[in-house]
């Protein structure tokens, strides 16, 4: 049993568990599943700076902070107690393409050639950590949600604005991957 859990989980196990998060949070206490809001709550708790957008009782949203704390802990458990000794297998064309761009260490969840401390003060680090992270934080708040809030939660409730959001997430992600990343990867 434990051996099976340690192997990579297929999409048809992971997807339904993620989908069940929507009713679980509703049953637990009428909470709308969405993870990017936690970033807003952290801003409201730590640096509200008299900005109206951060003037609200963030303590009422403490469930969201507990949820993301759980995510950190769960990820930690998964890479230690439930670690799979085998390297991650990614699709052959993707592996081949990335290797041609210098991303040769494909054994982990993140490419060591990009996401390492030694890149922090390089152009590569600036683009992949600072600019990328900034787009994620600014974009999700402007959009009023991320993959969980719009693509999973919003679509589950058949909300057309969330369908627009999901199409835009994927449209921009696909364009970036095909036309912008090839240049960024060789920086």
């Amino acid at each position, binding site marked *: 049993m434990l051996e099976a859990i340690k192997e990579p989980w297929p999409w048809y196990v*992971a997807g339904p568990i993620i*989908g069940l998060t929507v009713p679980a949070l509703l049953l637990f206490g009428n909470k709308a599943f969405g993870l990017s809001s936690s970033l807003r709550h952290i801003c409201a708790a730590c640096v509200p700076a008299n900005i109206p957008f951060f003037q609200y009782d963030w303590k009422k949203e403490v469930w969201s902070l507990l949820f993301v704390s759980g995510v950190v802990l769960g990820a930690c458990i998964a890479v230690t107690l439930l670690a799979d000794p085998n390297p991650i297998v990614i699709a052959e064309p993707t592996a081949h393409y990335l290797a041609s761009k210098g991303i040769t260490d494909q054994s982990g969840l993140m490419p060591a050639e990009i996401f390492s401390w030694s890149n922090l003060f390089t152009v590569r680090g600036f683009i992949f950590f600072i600019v990328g992270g900034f787009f994620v934080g600014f974009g999700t708040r402007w959009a009023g949600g991320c993959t969980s809030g719009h693509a999973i939660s919003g679509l589950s409730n058949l909300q057309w604005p969330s369908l627009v*959001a999901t199409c835009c997430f994927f449209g921009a992600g696909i364009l970036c991957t095909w036309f912008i990343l090839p240049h960024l990867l060789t920086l």
Partner: protein
Amino acid sequence: MNATTTSAPWWPNLRYAAWGILFGVVFVKAEIISWFRIQEMFRFESFHMYGVIGSAVVVGIISVWLIKRTRTKTLSGEPIVIADKTFNKGIVYGSLLFGLGWAITGACPGPLFAQVGAGYGVVIVTFISALAGTWLYGLLRDRLPH
């Protein structure tokens, strides 16, 4: 949104932490937080992530439909209310910006937490930058198109 009274015990909130732990385990074990898996997805070279998101949405739609249909209440007996999403132009601009960031970092906000938990320490920098982005949005909100 939630009618919490001051006398409500704090411990039911642990449910959220417990589900969060399960969520974090799923994120890692199904490699959803993998930068490589996001690349596969955007390059249309693997079905994995489409299967994850697609089946999550199908299960979500059925669950929400059932909850509405059976008028299920929360564990504390309140009626379940799901707020509608209202459209504004910010959804388009913001989503496009997030899509760019998703392809670059290989992470949406949830996986950022999980990548840090999985021991990729430098992602803390990405995370802080995402916080800065959220904060700057709050500062500039009134001047941005919505």
